C-alpha cells in the first residue's frame, strides 16, 4: 500500500567547522502528500533544504528523485528538475512588476532576443486564474503588501510545474483569509500528485494541512509520524525533547488603575482612524486583527514613529504629545518593533551597543563622556535578567538566534525604565522554547506594574497572555473582548467587520 517516495533524502550529514549541522537525517516525501518538517530554530530544517537545493554540499547521504539519484548544484538546476521552493524571506526585485518577477530568469522570448511581453502577460494571467490569485500583474512589486508578494512567490513556484515544492514558513505574513487560500492551492497541488514539503512553526496549520510530519531536533532525525496520530503536545514533546505541559506561563499579573487614556487616535499617512482605548497598570492589552488592519499603526502612532493627525494621549490624566520617539521615551514609553532585523537590531554592532543605545543619557559623566563601566554593568544585568545566551557582550548581535536578539531588545527597553511597553509581534520567528520565556518576561513586567500593549497575529498567544484584546479592522477599532471569555471565532468575526 505504501507508494514509493517521490523524493527521498537518505542519511544526509553535513558538518561545519565545529558544528554537526545534520547527522544522518532522512526524509521521504510521497506523491500527493503534504509532508511537514518541524523542529525548533536551529534544528537543521533549513540546512537540510539547502543540501537538497545544492546551496550547501552535503558530506554524505543520497538524494533520489523519482528513483533517480540526483546531485543538484544550484537552485536553478533543482528547478529545472522539478524541485521548487517558496522562501520565507522574499527575494524579489521590488522595483519591477509582478510579471517581471514571475518570469525572472526564464523570460519567454521572441526570435531568441526580445522578451515577449505578451506571452508573459498571458501566461501570468493563466496561472493567476488557475490559482485564483487576485493580484494586478502590472503592479510594481514594492507597492504590494507583503502578503500579496508572498502569493506571487507561491504562484511562481507553482508555475514551474514542479513535482516537489518546498514551502518555508509560507504563512508568516499571510492573513487568515489568505492562509485558507494557500491551503486551497496546496490541496490542488496535492491532488495533482505533487509532493509538498511544508516547514512551519504553527502547530494548528501543520495538523490541518499535512499528511505526515517529520520532526528534527539538534540536527538529528527524531521521528516521522502520520499527522492524524499526532497532537500538539506530542509534537512539542518531540521537538523540544521534554514535556512542555503548558504553552503559556501562569498569569499572575493583576490589572490596577488606568494609566493611559487614548482618544480618537488617527494617523496622518496611514489608515488608522479614530482609535480610543485605555490601558491599566499591570495589564496586558492585546491587539488582534488581520495583516494591514492597523495594529502596528496603533503602536507606532502612539509612539510617535508614525505621524498623528488627531487624537489625544493622556498618561496619568496629563495630556502628552509623544511627537517623536525621543519624546515618547522620555514620557516612559518603549516600542519593540515588528521587523526585528529591519528596525530592531543594529546587526553589525555588539550586544553592549545594542543594549544601551536608548539609554545613553543616563551614562553621561559631566554631560560629555560615557561611563563604560556602567554600560557594561547594565548590559550584564540585561544578559542575566533576560537569560540571553551569548558568548560575551562584545559578540555581534546578528550572530545570536532570533529569540536571543529579541531578549536583547527587550533588555534595551527595560533599561529606560518604561511605564508603557508597546510590543509588536514579540515572538515572531522565535522557536517554541524561547517563546515561553518571552511570555514569562511579559507577564513578569505586568506583575511589576507596567502597562503592556501587545500586537500579535497568533491568536492563541493573545488569548493565553493578554487580559483584554482590542480587535482592529480596516484601520478602525472593531471591538474589545475579554481574553478569558472570548473565542477565536468572536475575534475573527470582529476582525472582518470593516474589511
Amino acid at each position: 500500500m505504501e507508494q514509493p517516495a517521490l523524493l527521498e533524502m537518505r542519511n544526509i550529514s553535513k558538518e561545519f567547522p565545529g558544528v554537526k549541522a545534520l547527522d544522518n537525517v532522512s526524509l521521504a516525501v510521497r506523491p500527493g502528500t503534504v509532508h511537514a518538517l518541524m523542529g525548533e530554530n536551529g534544528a537543521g530544517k533549513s540546512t537540510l533544504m539547502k543540501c537538497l537545493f545544492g546551496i550547501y554540499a552535503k558530506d554524505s547521504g543520497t538524494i533520489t528523485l523519482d528513483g533517480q539519484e540526483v546531485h543538484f548544484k544550484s537552485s536553478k538546476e533543482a528547478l529545472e528538475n522539478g524541485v521548487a521552493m517558496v522562501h520565507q524571506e522574499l527575494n524579489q526585485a521590488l522595483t519591477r512588476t509582478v510579471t517581471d518577477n514571475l518570469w525572472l530568469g526564464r523570460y519567454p522570448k521572441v526570435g531568441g532576443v526580445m522578451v515577449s511581453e505578451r506571452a508573459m502577460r498571458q501566461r501570468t494571467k493563466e496561472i493567476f486564474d488557475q490559482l485564483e490569485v487576485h493580484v494586478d500583474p502590472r503592479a510594481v512589486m514594492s507597492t504590494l503588501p507583503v502578503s500579496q508578494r508572498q502569493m506571487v512567490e507561491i504562484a511562481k513556484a507553482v508555475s514551474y510545474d514542479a513535482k516537489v515544492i518546498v514551502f518555508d514558513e509560507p504563512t508568516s505574513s499571510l492573513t487568515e483569509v489568505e492562509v485558507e487560500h494557500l491551503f486551497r492551492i496546496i490541496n490542488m497541488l496535492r491532488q495533482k500528485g505533487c509532493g509538498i514539503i511544508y516547514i512551519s512553526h504553527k502547530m494548528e496549520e501543520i495538523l490541518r494541512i499535512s499528511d505526515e510530519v517529520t520532526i528534527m531536533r539538534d540536527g538529528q532525525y527524531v521521528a516521522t509520524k502520520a499527522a492524524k496520530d499526532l497532537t500538539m503536545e506530542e509534537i512539542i514533546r518531540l521537538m523540544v525533547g521534554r514535556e512542555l505541559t503548558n504553552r503559556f506561563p501562569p498569569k499572575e499579573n493583576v490589572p490596577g488603575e488606568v494609566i493611559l487614556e487614548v482618544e480618537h487616535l488617527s494617523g496622518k499617512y496611514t489608515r488608522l482612524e479614530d482609535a480610543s482605548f485605555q490601558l491599566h497598570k499591570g495589564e496586558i492589552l492585546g491587539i488582534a486583527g488581520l495583516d494591514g488592519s492597523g495594529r502596528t499603526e496603533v503602536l507606532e502612532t502612539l509612539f510617535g514613529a508614525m505621524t498623528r493627525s488627531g487624537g489625544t494621549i493622556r498618561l496619568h490624566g496629563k495630556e502628552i504629545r509623544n511627537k517623536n520617539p525621543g519624546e515618547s521615551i522620555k514620557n516612559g514609553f518603549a516600542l519593540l518593533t515588528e521587523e526585528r532585523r529591519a528596525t530592531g537590531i543594529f546587526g553589525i554592532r555588539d550586544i553592549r551597543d545594542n543594549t544601551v543605545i536608548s539609554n545613553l543619557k543616563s551614562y553621561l559623566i559631566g554631560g560629555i563622556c560615557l561611563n563604560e563601566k556602567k554600560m557594561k554593568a547594565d548590559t550584564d544585568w540585561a544578559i542575566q535578567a533576560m537569560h540571553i545566551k551569548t558568548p560575551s557582550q562584545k559578540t555581534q548581535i546578528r550572530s545570536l538566534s532570533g529569540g536571543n536578539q529579541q531578549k536583547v531588545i527587550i533588555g534595551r527597553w527595560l533599561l529606560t525604565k518604561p511605564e508603557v511597553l508597546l510590543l509588536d509581534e514579540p515572538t515572531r520567528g522565535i522557536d517554541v522554547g524561547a517563546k515561553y520565556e518571552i511570555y514569562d518576561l511579559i507577564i513578569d513586567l505586568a506583575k511589576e506594574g507596567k502597562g503592556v500593549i501587545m500586537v500579535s497575529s497568533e491568536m492563541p498567544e493573545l488569548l493565553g497572555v493578554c487580559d483584554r484584546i482590542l480587535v482592529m479592522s480596516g484601520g478602525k477599532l472593531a471591538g474589545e473582548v475579554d481574553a478569558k471569555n472570548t473565542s477565536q471565532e468572536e475575534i475573527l468575526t470582529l476582525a472582518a467587520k470593516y474589511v
Partner: protein
Amino acid sequence: MSKESKNLQETARAFGGAKRVGDILLNNALIIIMVIAVIYIAFRNQNFIKAASIINILAQTCAYLPVALGVGGCIVLTGTDLSAGRIVGLTACISASLLQAVTASSKMWVNLTPPPVLLVLVIAMVIGAAIGAFNGFFVAKFKLHPFIVTLASQLIIYTFLLLYMKAGNNGGMAISGLDKSYSDFITGCPQFIKNLTGGITIPNYVWISLLLTVVMWFIWNKTTFGKNMFALGANEEAARVSGVNVFATTVLVFALAGAMYAVTGFIEGARVASNTANTGLNYESDAIAACVIGGVSFVGGIGKIRGVVIGVLMLRLIFVGLNMVGVNQDLFYVIKGGIILFACALDMRKYLVKK
C-alpha cells in the same frame, strides 16, 4: 569513541584552524603587503628609515589626517563626502588671505592687520562646519544620497573659491607672503623639541593633528553622539525608534567633518605657503581610500579611529617610499587605484553573508 572518528575530528579541527589562519591573513592582507613593501623599500634605499624621512612621512600623514578623520564619520553613516577637497581649498585660501604679512606684495586685504592665528583657525572651522552642515541638511532632510549632495556642493564651493581668489587686491593670484605668526604656528618647531630630536624639525601642525585625533577618538567612542552615529550607520530605522535624533546626528556628523577639513585647510594654508584655487584638489579621494584601507566600511556602522590613522599612514608610506626607489610618477595612480579596489574587495568579504 573509536580511534578512527577521533582522527577524523582532529583532522576537521586542524582544517578549521588552517582556515582561520587563512582568514586572518586575508583580512589583514593589505597591511601585510604594505609591511612587505616598506621592508623592500627600506632595503633598496637606506634613507627611507632614517629619522628625517620618518619625520617627513609622519608630517605628511598629519597634514592629511584631519580630512580622513572627518570623512570617516560620513562613511560610518554609509555615506561619503566628495566636497572635502574643495573645503580644504576654500579654508586654506581664506586662512592664508587673512594672515598675509603687512608687507606682502599684492596683499588681498590691503588694510587688514593680521588677526590672532587662533581666531583665524576658529573662523576657518566655522566656515567648514557651516558647509558640512549644509551637506548634512540636504542628506537628512531630503534623504538624498551624500554622494549626490556633495557632488553638487563641491561644485558650488569651487565657484565661491574662484570668486574669493579674485576678491580684494588679489586678482586670482596665488596667495603668498604669509605673516610670520602663521608660518611659525604651523610649520615652526620650538627649540626644546629640536634639542630633543637632535636638530630635526617636527613641525607644530603634527601636534595639532595628533591632538585632533585624540579628540575624535573621544567623540567616536565616549560620547552619546558617537554611539548614535554608529547606531545610525548600522540601522537607521532601528536608531529612529530607539529615540536617536536622526536629523541632528546626520547634520552634526557632516558639520564635524567640515570642521576637520577646515583644519587641514588651515594647515595647508601655511604648509603649501602659496595657495591657489587648486589647493586641496582630490584630497577626498586619498582620505576615503585611507578610511577604507583602515577598515571603515561602506557597509556602515563600522570603523575605528586607529584604522583611519593606519590607513593614512600606509598610503603616505607607500607614496614616499615609491618616490625613494624611483618608481615612475605615472604609475602612482594605477597603484593607488589598485589599492582602493583591493581594499574594498577585502572589506566586503568580511561582511558578506556566505551562502
